[in-house]
C-alpha cells in the first residue's frame, strides 16, 4: 500500500518551515531529499565502519570494502546489469559522462567521426562531447526538436550514418520532463555500428530502468537525485566495451602494479575508479535504492504521474501560464512561464511562501534558445510530494501573478 503520510515521515527535512511557512519542496529535479534510513546509514558508516576500502588487511577495511562492493551489487540488481564489473562508481552523472567521453573517445573516436546528441540535453551531455570532438577533430550533430521540445525522430534517422560512432541523449529531458523515445532511438541506432549512451539523471528516480532490456551501451545517473547522498553516481557500461577502453584517470586503486618502466591497470571496475572512492556515499546509494525497492518503483511512478497530471491541469487553468514541453510522454516536471512576468520574480515570491522551485535555464541553454526564452520556472516532483502541495504552488503562483501585474 502506498501511504504518502508514512513516506513523508521518513524524510525529516520535510517537516520544517521556510520563511515561516511549511516547506513545499518542488525542486526534486535538482536534488531529492533523503529518507531517515539514508541519513542513518551515513552516520553508521562513520560511527562504526569507516576505513579506506580495498587496502587494509584489518577488520574495518574489510567491512568497509564489503559494504562498498555490496552497494555495487545492489546497483547492478536495480538496473539489471549483467555483472557488477559493469557498474562504475563516479562522482555523479556529469563525471560518468565525462568518463565515457574521455575513455570511449580515446579509443574509438577519430577525425571526421560523428557523435549525435539531442537538442534538449543538459549541458553535461553536450559539453563533454564538444570537448571530445574538439580534441579528436570529430563532429557533433544535433537531433532537432519540435515546438513542444520533443526530439524529431525522423530527423534523427537522417543524421545517423556510417560516420556515427556514438549517440548520446537524455532518457528524460531535465528542463521539460519529456521522456525521449529511448526504445526507438536505440532500435534505429542498432542498425549501425554506433554505440549508445543514455543520460539517466532524470529517469532513474521515476521509472524502472533495465539496461539489458534497453540494450544501451552506457547508462549514467546520480545518486543524489534518487534519495542518496551527493558525490556518488554510476556509469553503467557493457563489460566487453568497458574492457577495451583505456582508464580515465590514473592513481591508486586503478592499477595492478606500478613501476617506472611499466604500469599495469586493474581489471574492471577498479580500472575506472582511481583514488579513494566515495564509499560512504556508495553505501548511501545502496540504502536509497533499498528505500525505492521497498516503496516500489511502480508505486512511485504511478504516484508521480498522478501528481504531474494534476499539476499540469491545475496550472494550465492559470491565465497567461504557458507550459514548455507539452507531451504525453512526461515525468515529474512542469516547466512554465507566465505572461508579463519573469521566472526569477515568480521564484523569489514562491520562496517567500515556502515553496522551492527551480528558475533559470536549467543548464539547458540550447533548449531555452529553442523555445525563444531565457528561462522558466520548473516544479519537479518526488515520491513524497502531495496534491495539497500542488495546490499551494497554484495559490503561490496566483499570488505572485497579482503582485507582479
Amino acid at each position: 500500500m502506498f501511504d504518502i503520510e508514512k513516506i513523508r515521515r521518513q524524510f525529516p527535512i520535510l517537516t520544517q518551515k521556510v520563511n515561516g511557512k511549511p516547506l513545499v519542496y518542488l525542486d526534486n529535479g535538482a536534488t531529492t531529499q533523503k529518507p531517515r534510513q539514508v541519513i542513518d546509514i551515513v552516520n553508521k558508516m562513520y560511527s562504526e565502519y569507516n576505513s579506506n576500502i580495498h587496502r587494509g588487511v584489518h577488520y574495518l577495511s574489510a567491512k568497509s570494502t564489503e559494504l562498498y562492493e555490496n552497494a555495487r551489487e545492489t546497483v547492478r540488481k536495480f538496473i539489471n546489469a549483467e555483472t557488477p564489473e559493469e557498474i562504475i562508481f563516479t562522482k555523479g552523472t556529469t563525471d560518468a559522462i565525462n568518463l565515457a567521453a574521455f575513455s570511449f573517445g580515446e579509443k574509438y573516436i577519430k577525425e571526421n567521426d560523428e557523435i549525435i546528441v539531442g537538442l534538449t540535453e543538459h549541458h553535461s551531455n553536450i559539453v563533454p562531447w564538444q570537448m571530445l570532438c574538439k580534441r579528436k577533430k570529430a563532429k557533433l550533430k544535433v537531433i532537432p526538436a519540435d515546438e513542444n521540445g520533443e526530439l524529431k525522430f525522423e530527423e534523427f534517422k537522417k543524421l545517423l550514418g556510417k560516420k556515427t560512432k556514438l549517440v548520446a541523449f537524455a532518457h528524460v529531458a531535465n528542463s521539460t520532463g519529456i521522456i525521449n523515445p529511448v526504445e526507438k532511438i536505440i532500435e534505429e541506432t542498432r542498425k549501425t555500428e554506433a554505440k549508445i549512451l543514455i543520460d539517466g539523471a532524470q529517469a532513474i528516480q521515476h521509472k524502472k530502468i533495465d539496461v539489458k532490456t534497453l540494450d544501451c551501451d552506457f547508462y549514467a545517473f546520480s545518486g543524489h537525485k534518487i534519495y542518496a547522498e551527493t558525490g556518488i553516481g554510476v556509469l553503467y557500461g557493457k563489460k566487453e566495451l568497458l574492457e577495451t577502453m583505456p582508464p580515465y584517470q590514473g592513481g591508486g586503486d586503478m592499477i595492478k602494479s606500478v613501476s617506472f618502466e611499466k604500469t599495469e591497470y586493474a581489471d574492471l571496475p577498479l580500472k575506472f575508479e582511481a583514488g579513494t572512492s566515495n564509499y560512504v556515499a556508495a553505501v548511501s546509494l545502496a540504502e536509497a535504492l533499498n528505500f525505492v525497492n521497498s516503496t516500489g518503483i511502480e508505486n512511485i511512478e504511478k504516484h508521480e504521474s498522478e501528481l504531474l497530471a494534476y499539476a499540469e491541469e491545475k496550472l494550465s487553468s492559470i491565465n497567461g501560464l504557458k507550459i514548455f514541453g507539452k507531451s504525453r510522454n512526461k515525468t515529474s516536471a512542469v516547466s512554465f512561464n507566465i505572461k508579463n512576468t519573469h521566472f526569477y520574480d515568480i521564484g523569489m515570491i514562491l520562496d517567500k511562501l515556502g515553496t522551492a522551485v527551480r528558475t533559470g535555464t536549467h543548464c539547458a541553454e540550447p533548449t531555452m534558445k529553442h523555445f525563444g526564452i531565457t528561462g522558466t520556472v520548473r516544479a519537479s516532483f518526488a515520491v513524497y510530494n502531495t496534491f495539497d502541495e500542488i495546490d499551494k504552488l497554484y495559490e503561490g503562483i496566483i499570488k505572485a501573478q497579482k503582485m507582479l501585474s
Partner: protein
Amino acid sequence: MTTEEIQNEIIEEFSVFDDWMDKYEYLIEIGNTLQPYNEKNKTPSNLIQGCQSRVWLDAEYKDGKIYFTADSDAIITKGIIALLIKVLSGKTPDEILKTDLFFIDKIGLKENLSPTRANGLISMIKNMKAYATAFKAKYEQ
C-alpha cells in the same frame, strides 16, 4: 547627500515593513519607477548575462559625476537596481569607489547578492565601480 546618508535613508524607508510581502511590493513599485532605459543601449556590451535575470547597465560622465542608467527583465532585480542607482548615480568616481554598499544586507535582500544567484546584480555593482575607475583614469588624471 553622501552615499552613506542615502543608504541610511533607504534603510529607514524599509524599516516600516515587517512583512516580506510589503517589502517586495515596495521593491516592485520602485522597480516600476526606474528611469526608462534607452532600448538602443541594450547592446551586448552593456548586457550582464545571468542565469536568472539579465541586467543592462550604461554610464555617462558629466561635470565630474557619473550618471548610471540600467534595466533588467526581472522586476525584483529592477527594484534593487533602482536602489543602487539612487545611491551611486550622480556621484563622483571617488565617492563611488569608496562607497561600501551596506544597505542591501540591512534591508534583508542579501540573498539577491549571492555570487551563486547569477541574477546579474553582483556584476552590476562591479561594473559600476569599474566605470568609476575608467572615468577617473580618463578625465581626472
